[in-house]
């Protein structure tokens, strides 16, 4: 019998309408209507005492007037926009700039003037990432030999001008260090979750933990 597919489709949409379980997966963004239970959870009260103490708020939320700001649930491996860059780990090798398929990373280094004879790392004078043209492939993160550059976890970086989308070295230094765990299994192992808001220090994000002094003494040549 042909033509039954039409009615099957009608059945699916009717099931959407009548079964409440189908409506639970809806995620609202950037904020959502809050039920009294949600408000009680925010206030760290149990629902009954919340309803007793805040009758007006309860009534407003039942009328759909109370909203809660909610972050979208997303994976910790999400390749976001705010790059997490650790300048103490960065040597200025510019591997990220060389690997970038779009050529949007610009690095200018200068000598730092300290311990030049010992091969101390360069100072980064310019580190521009044009995220207006970035495709968030993450190849720069893969390329970094010292685990200094990480993808971020944010995505709400809308700006009014294209020129505002170029991140310079000061912004990178000042940015909150919430690295995404993408291509960084050591962060995943440690249970680091940028979405929940945990930051990571420069000595936690590398491929090795910070070696103890004995390890350092064994591994590195005595000078």
């Amino acid at each position, binding site marked *: 019998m*042909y*033509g039954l597919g039409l009615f099957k489709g009608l059945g699916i949409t009717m099931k*959407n*309408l009548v079964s409440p379980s*189908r*409506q639970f997966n809806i995620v609202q963004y950037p904020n959502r209507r809050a039920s009294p239970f949600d408000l009680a959870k925010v206030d760290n009260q149990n629902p009954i005492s919340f309803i007793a103490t805040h009758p007006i708020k309860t009534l407003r939320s039942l009328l*759909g007037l109370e909203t809660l700001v909610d972050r979208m649930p997303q994976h910790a491996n999400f390749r976001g926009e705010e790059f997490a860059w650790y300048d103490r780990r960065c040597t200025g090798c510019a591997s990220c700039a060389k690997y970038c398929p779009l050529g949007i990373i610009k690095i200018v280094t200068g000598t730092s003037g300290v311990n030049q004879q010992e091969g101390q790392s360069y100072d980064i004078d310019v580190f521009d990432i044009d995220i207006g043209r970035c495709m968030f492939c993450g190849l720069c993160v893969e390329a970094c030999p010292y685990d200094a550059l990480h993808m971020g976890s944010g995505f709400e970086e809308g700006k009014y001008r294209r020129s505002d989308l170029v991140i310079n070295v000061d912004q990178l230094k000042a940015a909150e260090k919430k690295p995404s765990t993408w291509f960084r299994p050591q962060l995943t192992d440690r249970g680091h979750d940028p979405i929940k808001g945990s930051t990571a220090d420069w000595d936690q994000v590398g491929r090795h933990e910070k070696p103890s002094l004995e390890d350092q003494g064994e591994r590195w040549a005595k000078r």
Partner: protein
Amino acid sequence: MTPTPAFFISFYTLRDLFDNLIQSLGFGASFGWMAGLLAGISISFLIINVMVMSTAFYTWFERRMIGRFQVRRGPNRNGPFGILQPFADVLKLIMKEDTIPDAADKPVFTLAPIALLAPTLMIMIVIPFGTYASDQAFLSNLNIGILFIVGVTSVNSIAIFMAGWGSRNKYAILGSMRGAAMLISYEIPMALGITSVLLLSGSLAMTQIVQSQSIWFILVMPMGFFVFMAASTAEMSRTPFDQIEAESELGSGYNTEYSGIKFAVLFLAEFMAPIVTAAVVTTLFLGGSQGFDFLPGGIWFAIKMFVLIFLLLWVRSTWPRLRIDQIMGFAWKILFGLGLFNIFLVAVEFMVAVELGHTKDDGSLTTEYMLIMAAVNWMVTIIAFVILANFVGKKKYHRPEPTASPLANMGIGGD
């Protein structure tokens, strides 16, 4: 049957009211025209405002319901459950700049929204909302009511063509060309569906059609109901047939260039159409304001309208848009044939009834014969649909074999 309400707002009650008022103020009998004028103005004011407000709430209802059908939330921010959303929309549209393109045909461009809205509103004057015993419509009990509806709705295609042609925009003209072709085609099955109703009712007056439905005509001729519903869904250009607008292809079709209050009026007309269509279908096929005695007839009418609107919403939220050739094929190959077959069937049954003497004094059929007709017609309809579905479904659509692009082998064997 159903008790007549003590007061029903109609043209005649209002005219009598104003007539008494004018007489009591000391004007003579020569001022009778004034009563008619005042009554007409006030009833028009009433109808327009009621329709606009109900359309506003209908847009909210439609968006909420389609949201739930498609596992979304509808508008839920302005006011409780988003009920103030239509007012926010209208406020935004009124405050927007009302642009007219330089190359546009300005009078045509300006008149098109009015030409689209007016017929939709005019249909409401012949719909008998009152109890069917008392022959009451809002403005007038026209004896050619259904013919009036068919004539007035035909203006829609002109209005849509005006909108597309006047705005001098390629998407608009494409949408309105499709619209003209589609609306004119679908008027034929719509008229065929109406004709089968008229065969049984024996009158063009809407009140008479309601009175003749001792069995609802949806039971007596389901095929006619299907044909009329499909055609009227196409007439108001909603989703299975919304090639006129086709947001994903034409950038909103005939209303591409409209903004501000003109767009609001177009939008209003478009969303008023389902309400009006539901009212017409209720009158023609669902027995109008017939019902049980514990509720007044107007409430029964509203309930039936609501069920039909829900049906239209359900279909709209589920089925995808058809291509323009599929739409035209559906009109001419399927609906046209079904409509003619339905008329033939009903006419033969009517003749048999006359031969066997199953008619009442006023020429309409007896209830028992209508029940027999209903049984026969349901069987015939189901068989016809199964045959049709198999006939249409068996047709194989051959996809052309993909051929390699000559550019794919560039440099190999090329010159």
